[in-house]
């Protein structure tokens, strides 16, 4: 992710984990007219900005989405997917070290503004519905993360 390097995570493992639960999770989300990770949040993100944004998003998913979504999991298959995604997000987040240099301030602020768009959309919804929707949008997040994947 630009200056940030993450190794030892194979994205296809995350995809397989999500696809195993995709239908179950996304069908719990009846509000098809709202999208949290809107195109304008993830479009035209520079490499430098991507590290800040992915770090914020992953932290949010770990601390808010996954932490609170767990109690809603009924099916064992979803539980395994959830655990795989959460633990792999933890690996990525722990390896990201967004720079704190002053000359990166404007870039980190731009990333923060994008992240706040996501947070606002999340908070405008009923919490339970927002948790389900956010977990169902992991594929949007993975698709975006994949663009920064070095071959």
């Amino acid at each position, binding site marked *: 992710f630009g200056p940030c390097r993450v190794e030892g995570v194979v994205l296809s493992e995350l995809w397989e984990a999500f696809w195993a639960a995709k239908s179950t999770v996304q069908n719990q989300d009846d509000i098809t007219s709202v999208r949290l990770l809107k195109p304008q949040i993830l479009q035209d993100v520079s490499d430098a900005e991507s590290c800040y944004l992915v770090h914020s998003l992953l932290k949010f998913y770990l601390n808010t989405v996954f932490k609170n979504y767990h109690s809603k999991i009924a099916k*064992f298959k979803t539980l395994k997917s959830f655990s795989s995604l959460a633990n792999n997000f933890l690996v990525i987040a722990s390896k990201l070290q967004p720079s704190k240099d002053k000359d990166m301030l404007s870039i980190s602020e731009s990333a923060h503004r994008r992240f706040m768009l996501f947070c606002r959309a999340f908070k405008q919804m009923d919490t339970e519905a927002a948790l389900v929707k956010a977990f169902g949008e992991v594929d949007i997040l993975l698709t975006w993360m994949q663009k920064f994947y070095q071959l």
Partner: protein
Amino acid sequence: VAVLPAPQNLTVLSTNMKHLLMWNPVAQPMETVFYSVEYQGEFESLYMSHVWIPSSQCSPTSGLACDITDDVIATVPYNFRVRATLGSRTSAWSTLEHPFNRNSTVLTAPRMEVTEHGLHLVIKLEDLGPQFEFRVVYWRREPGTMEHIKVVKNGDIPVHLETMEPGAVYCVKAQALVKLIGRHSAFSQTQCVEMPEESLPLAL
């Protein structure tokens, strides 16, 4: 009713990304004791330590070992616990002393078979599963020769390496690679093959 003792000496044996959790039996003469295995990844232990996930293979099992390969699906430390059940009696949980991380798996040098088919140098490697690739190094045994490298994706099919010169000797060695954990095994023993001198075509 006597309390059922908890299983002891939990250990994990991990070789080539196959992980086996083992424990000592709970002795109950003439009775079949069942065991349940549960795990939590680093996320669960950090964010929801009360949450344990039943193992996909062994909840319950009457054996003394559990294949936890399918449960360990991230490169993070995993806690495991086991308890015994006999009828309505259940023991306390016994927890693995040190969390297990798949990046500690033992990677063995791959077995290989080098053969020649006409002028083709062919290698067959052992099939270690989809997470494995093999780096094959081969060279012609002569002064100043250059090594060639080929990455072979799956092991179970014999693969052509090189078209050889008659009368030359070619040597091969291979190591296993696991991208998931960013590690590789030691090289296998080098094997060499001598190409027969070419038989001269029948003169008319």
